């Protein structure tokens, strides 16, 4: 019993330590991500470029995920700003996941592991990842449809992207969503455990 308690304390200590490190990494990632977005946002005020090269093409930055680059080129050819159309979706999804993870690891850092709030953050991460997976598949098609219906640009082709990347994204979203429900059950069990005299 004592050994088990000691082990639990060691595990909690480990969770707190690793969470602290993870929180810092998430913060760094968020800063880099926001910085890049702002950089491209400033660049794209008057242009439709979504890529930027530095030096003799040694450093290439892109505001849009690789999967959408061909569609971004198509939008640019039609005179549309691919960065604002596709880049913002990428940015919002990723920054939301980073924000929820930052809050979640903040709670873990405080040693609050089985809390309803943690389950909520996990659930939000799962929903965001799953929605992002759906957006990966349907966003280009929806954008094309919307532009074709409401704007007088040249007709855009309707694309659907479905491959291992999109499927992996959907799987991750579902897995995290299920884990959040498992955690919710664990929280309920812990609450009941507190009422065992």
């Amino acid at each position, binding site marked *: 019993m004592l050994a088990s308690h000691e082990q639990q304390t060691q595990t909690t200590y480990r969770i707190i330590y690793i969470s602290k490190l993870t929180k810092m990494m998430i913060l760094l990632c968020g800063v880099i991500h926001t910085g890049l977005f702002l950089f491209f946002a400033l660049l794209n005020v008057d242009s439709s470029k979504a890529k930027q090269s530095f030096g003799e093409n040694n450093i290439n930055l892109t505001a849009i995920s690789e999967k959408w680059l061909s569609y971004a080129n198509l939008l640019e050819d039609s005179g549309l700003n691919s960065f604002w159309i596709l880049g913002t979706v990428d940015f919002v999804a990723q920054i939301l996941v980073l924000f929820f993870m930052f809050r979640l690891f903040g709670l873990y850092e405080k040693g609050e592991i089985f809390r309803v709030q943690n389950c909520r953050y996990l659930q939000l991460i799962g929903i965001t990842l799953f929605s992002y997976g759906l957006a990966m598949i349907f966003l280009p098609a929806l954008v094309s449809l919307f532009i074709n219906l409401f704007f007088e640009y040249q007709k855009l082709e309707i694309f659907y992207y479905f491959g291992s990347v999109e499927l992996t994204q959907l799987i991750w979203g579902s897995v995290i969503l299920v884990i959040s429900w498992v955690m919710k059950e664990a929280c309920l069990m812990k609450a*009941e455990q507190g*009422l*065992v*005299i």
Partner: protein
Amino acid sequence: MAIIVNLDVVLAQRKMKLKDLSEILDITIQNLSVLKNGKAKAIRFTTLDALCEALDCCPGDILHYQTKSNTELEQD
């Protein structure tokens, strides 16, 4: 729930306070209060054993089963 905890009745019969019982059993007064108010989800055999020993009673004196019809009648 159909199980009623009569700890307050037994304590009154023994003219004992919850604080005294908590000292005898080495269980926090908060936990005993949860048990007394019927908010507990479960009771360990060890706790029940200690309670019976401290109060010199049987488990049936502390825990009482009330049928659903009885409960409804009481509520009416």
